[in-house]
């Protein structure tokens, strides 16, 4: 499934510079070194963190998108950096668990 498909399922785009990127699996976490070490390439990464370091981690760990749970969103400067670096970011009102449940259904 591509990242942009999520827009049809209640997720909102914060910035989608690479909308056709494929999602393979999900990782949930807010501690950056755990995400670095354990998220796999192409995973959708669900988090409630929204600082600049999230963009660097998503770039380097090569996740397919960042999904901000609980209605978290990004300050403008960080959104612009994500866009420039080609990092897809979405937001949802759902808590992380419920967002993962939706993805689980879609990724079957």
């Amino acid at each position, binding site marked *: 499934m591509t990242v942009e498909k999520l827009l049809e399922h209640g997720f909102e785009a914060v910035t989608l510079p690479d909308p056709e990127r494929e999602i393979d699996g999900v990782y949930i976490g*807010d*501690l*950056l*070194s*755990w995400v*670095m*070490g354990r998220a796999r*390439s192409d995973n959708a990464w669900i988090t409630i*963190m929204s*600082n*600049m*370091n*999230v963009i*660097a*981690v998503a*770039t*380097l*760990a*090569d996740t397919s998108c960042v999904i901000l749970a609980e209605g978290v969103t990004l300050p403008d400067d960080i959104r612009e950096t994500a866009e420039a*670096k080609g990092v897809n970011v979405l937001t949802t009102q759902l808590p992380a668990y419920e967002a993962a449940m939706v993805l689980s259904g879609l990724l079957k």
Partner: protein
Amino acid sequence: MSEDLVFHFDVDGENFTSAGQASVQVKKNLRQLGLSPEIIRRVSIAMYEGEINMVIHAGGGVADVRVNENYIEIVLEDHGPGIKNVEMAMQEGYSTAPDDVRSLGFGAGMGLPNMKRYTDSMKIDTVVGEGTTITMRVNLV
């Protein structure tokens, strides 16, 4: 590649909200060299963790990345406080990160273990009060 390629970076110790820039640049450079995504990912992760550690724990430093046909070598050198007990620092979960950087998502105590895990060799030279040099290699053959 006949001659080694070398990339050098000064890592600013002031600004940890936007740290990781050297690692992001290295990732770009390695991509241009046409290295495999898996190799690039391992180098990116190891270097990022080391770069962030220099910013958070040592007030910045310098990073040198050497690429040749046999390996990629990352050398991170700082003149921070040094690491008192390396064995302890290497353990998952051990962290002395202050609260202000923990609130940004750092301080899980997973950085050094990640560096070890994603590289083929890792050497820590550290002297308390003088600084730390970490040398990591990812083999290409």
